[in-house]
């Protein structure tokens, strides 16, 4: 039996009838039509599906869409300013070559946002532990660490 949910995604309210078992990631991608959050493992290990739910980074592959009812979701598509100006974290990932294939990047950037909210001037240790739940197979993380530092220097989250 479908349930009616209402979710604010990137500032816009969406109301849909969904199966109770529908995962939030599938809701965002298949129903709301987003392409930023990715599916890398479906076991909450890789973090490619990371979005912000009421301001906290969560892995949307291990939440149901119905759990987001009445709540606020920010995805990578909603991070840049309305005029298209990139968020400082996006700019930093670009400048520092913090991505290669790009598949982990939306999740990595949103996790960085959370990290910088928790630690505005993070140490290397805090950066690396803050990113522990997000896997990247391309970069060896070094340029990502540089990007987080650069974003922090620019005012971060």
């Amino acid at each position, binding site marked *: 039996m479908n349930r009616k949910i209402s979710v604010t995604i990137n500032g816009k309210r969406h109301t849909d009838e969904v199966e109770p078992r529908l995962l939030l990631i599938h809701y965002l*991608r298949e129903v709301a039509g*987003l*392409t930023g959050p990715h599916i890398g493992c479906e076991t909450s290990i890789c973090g490619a599906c990371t979005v912000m739910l009421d301001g906290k980074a969560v892995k949307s592959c291990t939440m149901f869409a119905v759990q987001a009812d009445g709540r606020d979701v920010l995805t990578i598509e909603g991070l840049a300013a309305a005029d298209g100006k990139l968020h400082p974290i996006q700019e930093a990932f670009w400048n520092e070559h913090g991505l290669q294939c790009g598949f982990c990047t939306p999740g990595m950037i949103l996790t960085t946002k959370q990290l910088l909210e928790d630690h505005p001037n993070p140490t290397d240790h805090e950066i690396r532990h803050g990113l522990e739940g997000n896997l990247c197979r391309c970069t*060896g993380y070094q340029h990502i660490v540089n990007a987080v530092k650069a974003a922090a220097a620019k005012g971060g989250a």
Partner: protein
Amino acid sequence: MATTITKTETLVGKRIRRREDPRLITGTACYLDDIKIPGMHHACIVRSTHAAAKIKGISSQAASELPGVVAIFTGADIAKLGAVPCAASLPGLRVPHHHLLAQDRVYFVGHPIAVVVATDRYIARDAADLVEVDYDVLPAVADPEKAIAAGAPPVHPEWPDNVAFTFHQEGGDTEQAFRDAEIVVKQRITSQRLIPTAMETRGVVAEWRPGDKAMTLWSSTQIPHLMRTMVAGILGMNENLLRVITPEVGGGFGSKLNVYAEEALMGFVAMKIGKPVKWVESRRENFTCTIHGRGHVDYFELAAKRDGTMLGLKLKLIQDLGAYHQLLTPAIPTLSVLMMPGLYRFKNISAEIVGAFTNCVPTDAYRGAGRPEATHGIERMVDILAAELKMDPAEIRLKNFVGNDEFPFPTATGLMYDSGNYAAPLHQALETVSYESLRKEQTAARAAGKLMGIGMSTYGEICAMGPSQALPAGGWESATVKVEPTGKVTVLTGCSPHGQGEETTFAQVAADELGCDIDDVMVIHGDTAIVQYGIGTFGSRGTAVGGAALFYALQDLKAKMKKFGAMLLESENVVFGGGACVDEATGKSVSFAEMATAAYHAKKLPPNTEPGLVATHFWEPPNFTFPFGAHIVVTEVDRETGAIDIKRYVAVDDCGKILNPLIVDGQVHGGVAQGLGQALWEEAVYDENGQLVSGELTDYAIPRAPYMPWIESSHTTTPSPVNPLGVKGVGEAGTIGCSPAVVNSVVDALSPLGVRHIDMPLTPQKIWNLIQQGGRA
């Protein structure tokens, strides 16, 4: 016609941020699973839960009755279609017929048995769970050495010895070298099975257009054109009616350098149901059904003089092939043999490969593809020899390197090393770590009871694959450059990258050669209907072969543009450069855009010249390139836990000329991460029944941010004479150089306990046990 200010700033060699990034950092890139087509259905594949079994029956009644299910296909439906292809050939190679779906028998866990098609991906998955397969379970074998031992269960009943091939390679006179030897060291060394783990799993979308008898296939692949040829063959359709599109690809590392059952299978499904269909691999499927890498058991014997001069090498290599040959499976260990001499001068090699079938998913090319195994072996053996002779590991390497005056250098395995200065990166790495004082520090640490290790590797690799003689489907690459009527530039490359940044580096090359603004250059790849035939991105060939093809296409185009420039300037004495054509006598010039417009408006044409500005070049490389480098790793082992702390990681890589240092750094870091994954954590573990125990990311440990050391990366530069850009390739260097340096470091740390060799991965459990046993494995 005014005097034009010419562009003088060049872009090659600069740290330029990537042009592909804006779409990736905003979530607007289109990966395979982002593709949606009206009427699209979803497929889910029923896979074997056993490593070896006869299929007694398949019951799909309940599944087919589920609302939303439109079709279920099994082995009988595809029996007359072609097989999953193996392009490699070796004398006497046994090639099992690799059907798209299992027929009466399954050979590995994950073997596809049936495909369920439904209107929704949840329904497809529900229905797949309702398909019941009745198995008659058979004994399985998952270990390659056990597989080729007497009495092992046969993987394929027609070949009861489980030997797919044996292959010998001889160079020089190895028997004489061993007779001349004053010391021979022997060691069994394994390179464990690894799971490539691209963050994006594989996926396919197929759309059949019955009116045209044509199909479009989207696949997350490294080789769109080869895919088109082979899938068309499997389906029995004309390849010019099949269009393969590679969307954004979320990592490959060799795992997408293949043609799998699912591409042709989705094509077949789309034809049958008359609707587009999508299949996206789950992570579990990615681990059980996409190729694995490595899977070596190697027996080495190294002969030398007591002064450390290496004389010859013997190798018996047992390659775990898995149950089938994928595209290049049997060829991968032959690359290992080619790379066996490493950077060393000795000319005597005797190698035997035994390719063993096992009830596991096939192995194939994974980052480095045969070269990491070889480098790990030779670099471990050099250290073992040095330890026996009580020589310094740097000293023994420097003594045996091919000399700078010996290039081009013919190796014992028939290669011709292009150029090199092998001592240079080692010296640079030794200086970076202050080697002499570091050894003193180690002596003091040992006296204080600490287990501190210093390890190095000096690696070589075979890149820019490669001459067409060496690759089954050709080793050339193609490029087309089009200057459009408005002077904007379109580059079409046959190399379809997936994270390597060629949209940027190729634009740098084009902008420099044409003298135009880089923002006026667009690089297009990965669509067989738009781009001329190409080979693909693998084997560190993108820039070294694809970039060279682009360079030559640009020369052809410049020559033609110059003709239009001369016509417009009414002079024969003109120079093309800096985005303009200049009459040297008068100083008058015509701009890039003026020449482009003239070529298309064609009101007047230079003699014997056709309208338009398009140049295509197919470039056949005359040789491989051979990058090299030195990595030094400083470790400390915790006696209480067996944990390894990497104190320093120094990488000095020589990949020839560097087009974009930012991108090269990224390639080195990522390569090292995958080498470190192999050295310390990763292992595809099959139990004795052929079940993949490390079957999810929960159990297979790829590197995470907190566990990666800071990589101190630098370079020496020895241009390659093989291609006009002087580049050698860098995509696999980090992976190849890393694992032996790490293991050599940890063995050095534990050498006071008498440890001489440890097989990867160096898990804390393994190290702790070694320490407990006083160094005896």
